[in-house]
């Protein structure tokens, strides 16, 4: 088995939600790429840019027509994360060097990623960076476990607290809808952007597990 490198991730990430809170303390009730509701896990789905958060909504709601997408009214939150034990699968090289297939990260079949999440959590991972299947070249950060938000200007006292603030509300732009990759569409042949280029990801590996 290949070695998994835990990194420290520090920076701003985004989340689209219309709830009055952007973070969860209870298990997710529906499946996502990194969680199966049967497993009772908690995943906090974030992205490294606003467009990817909205594209994930467009893809999951199957909004293939711009006229339909214009009727969505969604809030975007900004979160200031400072998390250790993050696994970086944001590029084919980083994923494959740690023993995980790049194709599974953008596949419509979530089972391999859900199983991988279970393994990573068991190894102590607190999050995973991965490509956005909805927006080619977008990057997601999924945090494992419960988190609660605190005011943007407040420093966290506990490791589960994340400063967060609501930054905008509206519909995805027409261009974003056209750029979104829907289910059953092939992932385009584009060079993925490294999380490093979008995010303040510490280069130094905290520790390795195998």
């Amino acid at each position, binding site marked *: 088995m290949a070695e998994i490198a835990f990194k420290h991730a520090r920076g701003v990430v985004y989340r689209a939600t219309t709830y009055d809170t952007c973070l969860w*303390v209870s298990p997710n009730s529906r499946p*996502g*790429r990194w969680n199966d509701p049967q497993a009772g896990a908690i995943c906090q789905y974030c992205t490294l840019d606003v467009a990817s*958060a909205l594209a994930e909504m467009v893809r999951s709601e*199957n909004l293939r027509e711009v006229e339909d997408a214009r*009727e969505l009214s969604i809030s975007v939150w900004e979160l200031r994360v400072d998390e250790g034990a993050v696994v970086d699968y944001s590029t084919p090289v980083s994923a494959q060097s740690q023993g995980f297939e790049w194709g599974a990260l953008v596949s419509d079949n979530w089972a391999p990623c859900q199983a991988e999440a279970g393994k990573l959590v068991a190894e102590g991972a607190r999050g995973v960076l991965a490509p956005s299947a909805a927006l080619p070249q977008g990057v997601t950060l999924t945090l494992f476990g419960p988190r609660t938000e605190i005011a943007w200007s407040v420093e966290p*006292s506990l490791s589960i607290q994340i400063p967060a603030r609501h930054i905008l509300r509206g519909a995805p732009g027409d261009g974003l809808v056209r750029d979104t990759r829907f289910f059953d569409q092939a992932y385009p042949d584009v060079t993925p952007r490294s999380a490093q280029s979008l995010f303040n990801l510490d280069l130094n590996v905290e520790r390795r597990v195998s």
Partner: protein
Amino acid sequence: MTATTPKDPQFRRLLEIDTEVEGVKAAFETAIAEVTAHPEIDGSAEKRLTEVGRRLSALKPQLEAADLSFEQKATLYAAMVDITNAMNAAPEDLDRFEAALIGIERVRHVIRDALDEFVGGASADRRRLLEEIERSLPGVKQAELAELLDVDPRTVRRWSSEAGKAEHRLQLVAHLVAILRHAWTPKGIVGWFQRPRRDLDGGRPIDLLAQPASERDLLTAARSSRNHYAT
């Protein structure tokens, strides 16, 4: 962000609980910040936790009387047990603060969800539910509403003026609209019912409204448009 009038007694009760739980959470966060910044005055930690417990215990009768589903009550009770356990944990157990905060937040989320999806309570009759739907869907044609409810437009007009036991489909549509109004324009809500969905095995919500076995899936699908996941 709700179409329901705050004058409704059940809704008002939920609002009062929500305000109190918010207050408990804020007081707890302040206490944690002080305790972690000044561990030398740590003697206050137990007092703070006891105060949180007292305030939450005082809420129990209100929580029991609140208009909540069986599932919501189960979550609530589990969270209360977790908070009690956290408060009774050994002082050297540093995880107790996180466990207590998670418990408080779970209580808050249950109440918040009940408020967000409130449509007149369990006893709401068909006129009341229709009123709620129409308030959330201004500008939507009565024919479109009739299609959602699978009745003749004349029946919709009659229901608007006649009290009576609400049909199951009307209750379900009212509940779905109460969820969807947080993320969609009125036109978008109507469109949501017509679009095939992957999480409904390619089915359109409107085609599943008559199937009792699909009710839970429909509610989950509606809630999914309130927040993004990695897909």
